[in-house]
């Protein structure tokens, strides 16, 4: 009898389908994946080390550059954490503006993740549709904040500037456009037979494994765990938020959960625009000493900032726990194990929306 040779299959660090460098080492028998290991360290910048001893104006920008894709939420979480320490309450209009910018950022991040997935399973048409729709969101983000990616819109005590009515109107019409277009794309995704072949029943993550590895965000919500830090946030509670949960736990569920969350974000922005009353957007206030652990929901899941400040508002100690850490770990150690084909390695990996820059900081 011919002996089956076990092959160790490395993918990366530079791979056509990855936006970022990382190295997946898969132990395979034929096409069947026995186990996988991810090697990191390609984008380790030591952000937490740099942040120590710096005032908020510098740490705010460093926090934003933990991850370029979900930059707004890092800014948002850091600022709300230091605000909680010093007891600063932002004006109501500023709170709603923060939600609007954050949800726009979530939309572009989810659309980018779904673009990557569609591109990975070689459905390039849908991928380009989704990527072009993302540009509409980016335009709105630029219109409100003045920059496409690293917006630096949220500062302690409020936001940088107001959203005048003409820009709000343009935002509303863009939301209508996104709503109608995305409904079409989601129908393409749902009914595509080849998409179903590459997505349904592949890369299954069970609820138990997700709980043990502390999976978060759309990855966990697609496996039937209803966790979303937004339901604890007062502004989101005022907007009537409830998380999107699916139960299949495969690639398809994760992508659909993200599409559903984009629709949810559209509705959240609409209701925030309705509820917003004219008023000030900056309340002032200085950062004081204290320590806090603050959690918020990033596009990829729960984001934790654990920080200590001194009496002049400098950051003494900081630890950032980003959602990608948990999601990539559960992806590499649970989903990739027992993948039927080597071609599914990349699609499973991309479906968990990995962000290596977040993971390593």
């Amino acid at each position, binding site marked *: 009898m011919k002996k089956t040779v076990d092959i160790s299959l490395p993918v990366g660090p530079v791979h056509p389908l990855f936006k970022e460098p990382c190295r997946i080492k898969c132990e395979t028998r034929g096409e069947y994946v026995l186990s996988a290991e991810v090697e990191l*360290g390609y984008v380790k910048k030591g952000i937490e080390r740099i942040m120590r001893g710096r005032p908020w104006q510098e740490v705010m920008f460093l926090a934003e550059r933990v991850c370029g894709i979900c930059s707004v939420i890092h800014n948002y979480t850091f600022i709300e954490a230091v605000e909680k320490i010093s007891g600063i309450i932002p004006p109501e209009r500023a709170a709603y503006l923060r939600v609007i910018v954050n949800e726009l950022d979530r939309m572009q991040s989810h659309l980018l993740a779904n673009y990557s997935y569609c591109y990975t399973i070689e459905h390039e048409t849908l991928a380009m549709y989704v990527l072009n729709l993302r540009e509409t969101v980016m335009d709105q983000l630029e219109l409100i904040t003045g920059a496409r990616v690293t917006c630096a819109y949220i500062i302690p005590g409020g936001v940088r500037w107001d959203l005048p009515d003409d820009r709000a109107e343009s935002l509303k019409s863009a939301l209508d456009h996104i709503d109608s277009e995305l409904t079409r794309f989601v129908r393409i995704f749902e009914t595509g037979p080849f998409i179903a072949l590459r997505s349904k029943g592949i890369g299954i993550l069970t609820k138990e494994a997700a709980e043990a*590895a*502390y999976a978060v965000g759309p990855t966990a919500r697609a496996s039937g765990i209803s966790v979303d830090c937004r339901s604890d946030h007062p502004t989101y509670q005022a907007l009537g938020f409830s998380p999107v949960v699916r139960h299949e736990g495969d690639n398809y569920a994760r992508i659909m959960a993200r599409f559903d969350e984009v629709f949810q974000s559209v509705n959240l922005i609409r209701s925030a625009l309705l509820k917003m009353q004219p008023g000030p957007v900056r309340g002032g206030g200085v950062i004081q000493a204290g320590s806090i652990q603050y959690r918020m929901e990033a596009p990829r899941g729960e984001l934790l900032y654990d920080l200590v400040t001194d009496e002049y508002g400098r950051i003494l100690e900081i630890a950032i726990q980003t959602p990608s850490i948990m999601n990539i*770990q559960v992806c590499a*150690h649970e989903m990739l194990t027992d993948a039927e084909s080597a071609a599914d390695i990349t699609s499973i990996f991309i479906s968990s929306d990995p962000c290596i820059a977040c*993971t390593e900081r």
Partner: protein
Amino acid sequence: MEYLYEKDLRRMKLLILESRRHHAVTIEIAAILGIKPQAARKILIEECDMLLLENLPARCDAARKKGNEIEQKLGIHMLTQATHLISPDAGQKAVADVIEKIESGLEKEIALEEGRTGILELIRS
């Protein structure tokens, strides 16, 4: 197994463990095993891959509250589920041993201490 482009990852793993939350977890695991934090760090660097090390605080958060009193005192779920230092079967066996010793009349503290030594042997072997 030998890989091409393979590098010594120990320095990078140490950089991961330097972080504030990782430092707290290392001390906690050291306390569970009854050894110095430096020794615990060495065990973690040798046994875990980079991704597991990054995810250590979150996994420990999930595992910390699990299990009954004996399991919590031994930190079995921290060692099996969170860090994969010992296999789940070996962990259950260690717990069963300790419970047996307590039932056979040994004092609880001493039994726990013996269990801890047994687990450390298991990890080091």
